[in-house]
């Protein structure tokens, strides 16, 4: 049985992926689904309570991926999937944008992040660092 946090994230993920159908110009649901499922499994294994989910947890998840051998491309697609989900969640007021502080790793990633925030505008300005790759 999944933890309460994993359950709540699964519901958030499902709603996000449903919202993507018909407007997949930025991120395709079939590409985002396995990445977000992987993050859901990480949350489940972490046994964190729902109120403990924070930006630092997202950072640690990506760090764990890197420790396990993920290269820049694999990390970048996870960062963008999380940025898209949480930007959508904040825009629809389903959850705060915990991924706003995640810096894309490449110039292309930074450009895609700008598109994400154009699609789901944040309440306040979000700084997307430009990395020179």
């Amino acid at each position, binding site marked *: 049985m999944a933890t309460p946090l994993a359950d709540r994230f699964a519901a958030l993920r499902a709603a996000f992926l449903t919202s993507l159908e018909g407007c997949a110009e930025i991120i395709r649901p079939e590409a985002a689904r396995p990445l977000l499922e992987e993050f859901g499994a990480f949350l489940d294994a972490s046994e964190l309570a729902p109120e403990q989910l924070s930006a630092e947890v997202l950072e640690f998840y*990506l*760090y764990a991926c*890197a420790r396990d051998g993920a290269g820049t491309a694999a990390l970048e697609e996870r960062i963008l999937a999380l940025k898209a989900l949480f930007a959508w969640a904040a825009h629809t007021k389903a959850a705060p944008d915990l991924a706003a502080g995640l810096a894309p790793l490449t110039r292309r990633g930074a450009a895609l992040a700008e598109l994400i925030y154009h699609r789901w505008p944040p309440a306040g300005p979000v700084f997307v660092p430009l990395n020179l790759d």
Partner: protein
Amino acid sequence: MTARTVVLGPLNRVEGDLEFRMVVEDGVIRDLHTEAVMFRGWEIILKDKDPWLPITVTPRACGICGISHIMCAVKAVDSASGNGLQGTDLPPQALLVRNIIAATESYMSGMRHHWLLFAPDLCNPRYADSPYYPEILARLAPLHGSSYRASVAWSKKAVEVTAIFAGQQPHPAAIVPGGVTTSPGLQDITKSLGIWRDVTEHFTENIVLRGSVERYLEIDSWEAFQKWMGEGEHEDGDLGLFVKFALHHGLDKIGRGLDRFLSWPCYEYPSGTYWNPGGLYHGAWKYDGTYEPPGSNLKAFQGRVTEDITHSYFEGTGAAHPWKGTTVPVQNVEPGVKHSWAKAPRFDGKPAEVGALARMLTRGDKLIRDMERKLGPSVFLRQFARIHELIISTPVIADWLRQVDPRGPFYVPTPRKVADGEYWGWHEAHRGALCHWVVYKDNKVVNYQIIAPTTWNVGPQDGADQYGAIASACMDCPADDLENPVEVFHALRSFDPCLVCTVHVVDRDRTISRFRLSP
């Protein structure tokens, strides 16, 4: 046939100028003088200055090994500021981040040395009939070869990790007495790990090895290496291609040199041990394969170094330890008895080779020690060791990145006043042993002497007419074609000579400019 004097130069592809004055007879080099043709003046600039100034000034000696100079300058101050000898009492995370900064810079330098500075000579028209020539050109031709271009791109990626931890590259200022000024966050570490995975996979494994680093690390002898070459696509990687080419064209039989190697301890661990413990190695090919580690008395070990100026453009003659050394340029710089702006460093009064091969031998690397014993030192082995070091350090750097803890601490406050006395800071630059020797008095630099790696290798003969490493190696080479002495180029460039921190600027015929350095 009469002997002919030939001057070759400028010879090195990286920085600074180097010339050879060779006496050639019947295609054999009878004598060879190395001539560093520019004056080095760092010691003069630093005299009577603030003890912390060398930390800022000496890295400017070079845009390639700047971090190595910072490491040496900072370690000397650490030693004089209560942070332990060579800074070994610093917080473990500070040492770890210093190691990452220095090792990634060295990695970049190693990639550029082989693919950009050494390998172009393999494209020399002399080899046009070689069965490997088409493939060599396709991969290594300057500006066009696939591996040449890949090395530019991937060495830049590697050094991005340096910049993440050091704030910028080149010339970072993040390494300071007391530790480092950066405190990396989790995202910095994540990004660095991602980059390092890319470098490992796309360059080291796909281009260099055509196989896994993990499998390569199992190789512990020359025979095991040859077996590895026969597996899968290994012989098609850049390492495999180099080995096939080098053995086919006899690069394993030229440029043997001294067979006496020196390296300084480098990459400190909190336990007081080092990734490379350094030391002196007498090669098994020419001597007996004995290794002498620095031991616990590091001060005594460095105390065996002298610099001889008999044939250097400096006032005086004979040898002195760097703490007692002087740097007073002579006025007459016409080549004669004195013919180089480089001094001649000696260890126990004898010359030694420094560089990647020396590091691998003093570190006790099984494969390289076995190859040295069976094949002897050569252009081939020197270059093989450099590529080998790149490969084996890939997982080491990844492991260090995994050990970084953002909670630190990365720094301990360090007083701006140093204790009077004699100190030194050593490190292994990519090109070999680098050390700064300094004497402080009343919180000022009284004497500052740098012995750079290329000084060890390219320095002239000493008062006892003992030749340095490069001269010895090049005198092993045939010189049939004086218009295109490619074997001499191979031997010289296998050392990756870089003159910029060995010497500095002068023009023989006129004053370029005058600068007032202090009131």
